């Protein structure tokens, strides 16, 4: 468990797979137009790790995800994914490399059926074999059986929880190495959040999927994360294991109302 990415890379063949940073963000500045939103942001997700990014509304969480997935250009700093520099790579190529972003507010294709939404998740996988697509569809339906019931229904007519399931299922269809989920729990009943998190946990444990969980609900995120980052006003202000952060008095005071 070597936390330093540089030494892990130098000793590449012998370094344990687990320690290698799958995603490494360093010194990232970005924003919209003239307005800077992120300052010197550094963040790391290792292979097979669940990392939480928590912070208040407007702290810059969604902007960070947009910058990582190539939807917002970086002003300064570097983003590496799977040993490749993706700082200035287009969104399309980033998706192809297995870095999948489930955007806030679910962003489904409302007029299309659930199954069509899911299939579009596999868009960048260049058609491939129809059997692989069918296998992946069945996998998503097994994980989230509610989607199987709704497969022919227009995504816009689903309940909030089902829409979130559809968005995450669509993300899984791209066979991600890292799934970044923006505000998974927003507006959802606790039992639905549990169902979705259980499905994600299943893939995380069985297939080593790494997850970057972006949450306003600090408790939900830090309870499940291996590590976490706290972002405030566009800067990372503290980091540690999920348990450490949950115990930290500053986090408890700022986000858990204690």
């Amino acid at each position: 468990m070597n936390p330093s990415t540089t030494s892990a890379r130098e000793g590449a063949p012998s370094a344990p797979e687990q320690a290698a940073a799958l995603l490494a963000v360093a010194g990232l500045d970005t924003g919209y137009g003239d307005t800077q939103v992120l300052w010197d942001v550094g963040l790391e997700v290792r292979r097979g790790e669940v990392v939480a990014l928590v912070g208040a509304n407007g702290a810059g969480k969604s902007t960070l995800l947009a910058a990582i997935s190539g939807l917002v250009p970086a002003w300064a700093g570097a983003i590496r994914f799977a040993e490749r520099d993706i700082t200035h790579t287009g969104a399309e190529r980033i998706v192809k490399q297995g870095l999948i972003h489930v955007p806030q507010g679910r962003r489904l294709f409302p007029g299309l059926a659930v199954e069509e939404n899911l299939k579009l998740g596999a868009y960048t996988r260049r058609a491939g074999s129809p059997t692989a697509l069918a296998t992946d569809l069945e996998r998503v339906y097994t994980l989230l059986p509610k989607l199987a019931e709704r497969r022919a229904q227009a995504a816009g007519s689903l309940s909030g929880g089902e829409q979130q399931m559809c968005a995450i299922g669509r993300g899984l269809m791209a066979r991600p190495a890292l799934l970044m989920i923006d505000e998974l729990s927003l507006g959802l009943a606790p039992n639905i959040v549990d169902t979705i998190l259980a499905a994600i946990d299943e893939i995380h444990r069985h297939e080593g999927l790494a997850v970057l969980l972006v949450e306003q609900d600090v408790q939900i995120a830090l309870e499940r994360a291996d590590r976490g980052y706290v972002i405030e006003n566009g800067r990372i202000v503290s980091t540690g294991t999920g348990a450490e952060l949950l115990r930290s008095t500053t986090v408890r005071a700022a986000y858990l109302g204690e």
Partner: protein
Amino acid sequence: MATHAPARDPLAGTGAAGVRRESREWLWSLLAGVAILAAIALVPLSGDDAALSLWTLIVMFCVLAQGWNFIGGYAGYAAFGNVVFFGIGAEAVALTLLNGGPFWLGLLLGTLAAGLFAFLLGLPVLRLRGHYFAIATLGIAEALGELVAAKAIGGPGGEVSLTPPDLDFHIANTLFFYGFLALSLLTLLGTAWLARSRFGVALVAIRENEEAAEALGIPTFWYKVGAFVLSALPTALAGGLYAYWFLSLQPTGEGGVFDVGYSVSMVLMTFLGGAGTIVGPLIGGIIIEYLVQTTTVAFGDIHGQLLGALIILVTIFLPQGLIRLVRELTVSPAGVKLSYTRRFTEGVRRVQRFIASNGI
């Protein structure tokens, strides 16, 4: 866990059926379109010159609507300046003929020029969304019309009179009629291909939610440019055919080849039939242009008001077009076998519900 459990899931079968039903819909649409065009192809047999020119015009408008469907129906971008491609196609033929060139060269040049223009115009305007995109395209079309009028390639104001082809009048008109018909068939085939292609699926994703499409790795901008170019090609060809068929052209004003009225017709026809469907623009084009022509004859000046009323009715009761009605009428719930009469009554009930849910 990872092993396959065949046929354990009772829904697995219906999923496959759903896929098959989907693929049958494109085939039925295509066949319906071909059947409609085949029926229209019989018009010249009547020997009625008035009917021939009426249907030539109708099919021409069908092509315009079919072309608009690529950018407006599939990609969901409300292009209000597609007449510009019609004008470019028409003016290219006029210029070529005036300079002693052959008709086919004019058609070719016009199509290439319109495609190139769509590409270059798309680079800036397809970065705009919604109303801004609509207004920008509308403005460009008006501006280009004025520019052509000012440069006056023919007589004053850009009016052009062309020498008719060296053929018997009736034969020439029949050929133009079949020319438009072939163009419509080609565009229909192109639409059926698009609807089934990865490109078409991506355009629908852009229409449904552009940010989500981008996040999924669809190169949204270039696909939109592609759809815009695709919509320019049949439109320019129709303009070129129109120029040599109609023989007298003016760039601006009512009936001018850059008249915004054409753009409005394309939008209206596509929406009446069903935007983003294979055969919708064809059906919408036939209904509207037939009504326009016959009401002009029957009611003279008030035909505009009648059309206006039709537009209002369509937007209130059929915002998703006639094809959607057919879909509601024919689709049967997955996995359930019903008799034909039962299916029909169920369908009628669904249509009633559908109209009621879209009504006031």
